């Protein structure tokens, strides 16, 4: 009789089976056999058998290793120490097989061979090694050019969409920005000194393939300022059905330009007379819908950069937040000085003012956008709000009166 009758039921079915995969490794690695055994126990009892904890790490870093211990070490001795290592992924998750095989060799030597490609933040995750193996595994990786990622109250490993490497819509070099920002903040990444975690994510366009708006404290989303580029002949080819909507990725084969594109434009800034598509670009919200539907006919403009949004996090504690606009447009040319300076200012203000376990987006809600903007050197801009306040509780500061004395008015008359 099998040791894992419940897990065995996950070996069938068309989706790849992690149980099959783990069983094969378990034949060589006793700790993976124990891992399956403990998982089976969780399936039977419907509770986890991991304990948090203990401070473990590599020399000089306070981040990137998560201590993990079984609460059933007598039954599953291979899991007595079974720590997680986060390995900072390369931008865009591109690999050569030589690099992947090297990573596999190191992880087979020092750990369980079980991994995640990739964890929620973007790192390569190595699951399961002992305290003694952490430092040698780290140094073996470092010799080959890989470093550990972030964890705890630190900068977390930034991540990005594939951007200009394989997408015609990317409005800046997400891959290089991600790499450069990661290098810039190495100290903050490895040595937790923040009130809580801080994440950067880089998406090349408003489709936001890395969910930056939902999953990063600082969300850098590509945008263009000028006109959508139109290939008029290709628009006609979509209208005629020679080109398929979404490049063939949709459930329909032919576009109705009026109904599918023009009528669904959220700003109603487009028109179609059966012959030519016109866009009033000044009114465009750059939502990407028309471009998504007709990738051979429409492309973002050429005056490109990024919008900086701040504040998103999962529901802990005040409830889930999405990032909101703090800088509508920033040039994003290497070496990304504007973003580095703004990022450093934000982290400094948050570290000074944030309570333990308070994300930057929660701190701004507690202290107010005015205090935040003044501290990091940002002007108020209408793009940062959906609507202005509807209450009369707006306050005035001496600087406001000074500005009025110097001639400031609140509407041009």
């Amino acid at each position: 009789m099998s040791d894992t009758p419940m897990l065995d039921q996950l070996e069938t079915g068309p989706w790849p089976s992690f149980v099959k995969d783990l069983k094969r490794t378990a034949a060589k690695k006793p700790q993976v056999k124990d891992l399956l055994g403990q998982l089976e126990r969780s399936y039977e009892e419907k509770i986890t058998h991991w304990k948090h904890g203990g401070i473990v790490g590599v020399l000089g870093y306070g981040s990137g290793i998560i201590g993990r211990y079984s609460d059933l070490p007598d039954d599953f001795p291979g899991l007595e120490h079974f720590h997680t290592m986060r390995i900072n992924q390369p931008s865009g998750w591109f690999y050569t097989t030589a690099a992947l095989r090297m990573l596999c060799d190191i992880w087979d030597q020092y750990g369980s061979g079980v991994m995640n490609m990739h964890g929620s933040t973007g790192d390569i995750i190595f699951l399961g090694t002992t305290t003694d193996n952490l430092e040698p595994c780290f140094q073996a990786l470092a010799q080959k050019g890989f470093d550990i990622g972030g964890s705890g109250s630190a900068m977390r490993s930034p991540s990005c969409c594939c951007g200009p490497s394989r997408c015609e819509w990317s409005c800046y070099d997400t891959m290089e920005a991600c790499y450069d920002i990661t290098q810039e903040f190495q100290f903050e990444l490895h040595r937790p000194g923040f009130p809580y975690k801080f994440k950067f994510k880089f998406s090349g366009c408003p489709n936001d393939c890395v969910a930056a708006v939902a999953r990063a404290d600082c969300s850098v989303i590509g945008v263009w300022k000028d006109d959508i580029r139109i290939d008029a002949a290709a628009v006609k080819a979509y209208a005629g059905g020679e080109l398929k909507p979404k490049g063939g990725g949709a459930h329909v084969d032919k576009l109705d330009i009026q109904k599918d594109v023009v009528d669904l434009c959220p700003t109603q800034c487009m028109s179609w007379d059966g012959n030519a598509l016109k866009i009033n670009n000044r009114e465009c919200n750059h939502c990407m819908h028309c471009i998504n539907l007709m990738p051979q006919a429409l492309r973002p403009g050429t005056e490109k950069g990024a919008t900086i949004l701040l504040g998103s996090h999962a529901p802990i504690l005040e409830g889930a937040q999405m990032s909101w606009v703090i800088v509508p447009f920033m040039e994003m040319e290497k070496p990304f000085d504007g973003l580095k300076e703004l990022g450093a200012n934000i982290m400094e203000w948050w570290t000074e003012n944030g309570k333990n376990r308070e994300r930057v987006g929660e701190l701004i809600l507690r202290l107010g956008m005015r205090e935040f903007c003044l501290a990091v050197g940002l002007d108020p801009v209408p793009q940062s709000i959906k609507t202005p306040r509807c209450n009369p509780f707006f306050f005035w500061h001496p600087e406001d009166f000074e500005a009025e004395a110097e001639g400031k008015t609140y509407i041009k008359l």
Partner: protein
Amino acid sequence: MAEDRITDIGPPHYEQFLPPVIKANYGKWKYHEIPQPGVLKHVGESGDELYTVRCGAGRLLTTDYVREVCDIADKFCDGHVRWTSRNNIEFLTPKKENVEPLIAAIKAQGWPVGGTGHSVTSIVHTQGWIHCHTPAIDASGVVKAVMDDLFEYFGEHKLPAQVRISLACCLNMCGAVHCSDIAILGIHRTPPKIFHDKLRHVCEIPTTIASCPTGAIRPHPDKNIKSVVVNAERCMYCGNCYTMCPAMPLFDPEKGGVALLIGGKVSNAKHPPMFSRLGVPYLPNNPPRWPETCQAIRKILLAYANGANKWERVGEWITRIGWSRFFDICEIPFTFQHIDDYKWAYDTYNTSMHFKF
């Protein structure tokens, strides 16, 4: 310690991993097509072509599995491969003639090809019982069961728009799933149990009290008992106290389970990004295949596929028909749990006559 110890080098530069056709066309791609589900064709200004074959995978795998990925990439892609933000594996080649044999090799491995366009692509998820100390449910097992059930939607473009499913195995949501078309959320439903005798030996009381994000923990009123008490009304079952204090487990094998949150998205197309909202407050925690969870997701997906207009995401469909109609169609009884009473609840109340009977 050795002086040649290496630290703070950061990740390797990506450029060394890019295929030559990407280096040559970096930032100069002109357009893309999806000639068949799971296959992307990118065309550069230069006329160069890049083919990508997208292969579904779980995020939990082994070095043996990754070496099999490498074998295929060596054979058909000159050793170039990447992963997507949703745990899919992408094989990259400029050679059109390699696409069909590549697909055949992937399928021979028992791996699915798809996840493009109007499909249900791979589920992003958290660790679950394989490696975490606070989960209410497993992660990889639920994902495997749901993807087996929805398999037909992975390899075809037959939905009104793309559908993104995500799973977090407790409400801490280390995989932030709060903006997904369908979010599967593991939930605890009872406050932690306190083992007073054990607590005084293994826990530090001030850090245990400080660990509670809602301030629900205070010292035990009887000074002779060196322990804490939990104000059950303030507890929202996050398990942060258990992280600090192993004498306070909050696991209840029978009461824990699954909630489904529906209608979120991150893209800006048409509507701005949306949060997922509570759809189904509780489904039983039923390993190894969580049949109730699979059935509920299928029911909601089919209702969406049947009712949505072209290009509508799940949340856009619900916004158009209204939540009351959504509950109606999906046969979800409305409960007190659906009505927000947390911090920003007022934003969710209907202050208009815009509703349906």
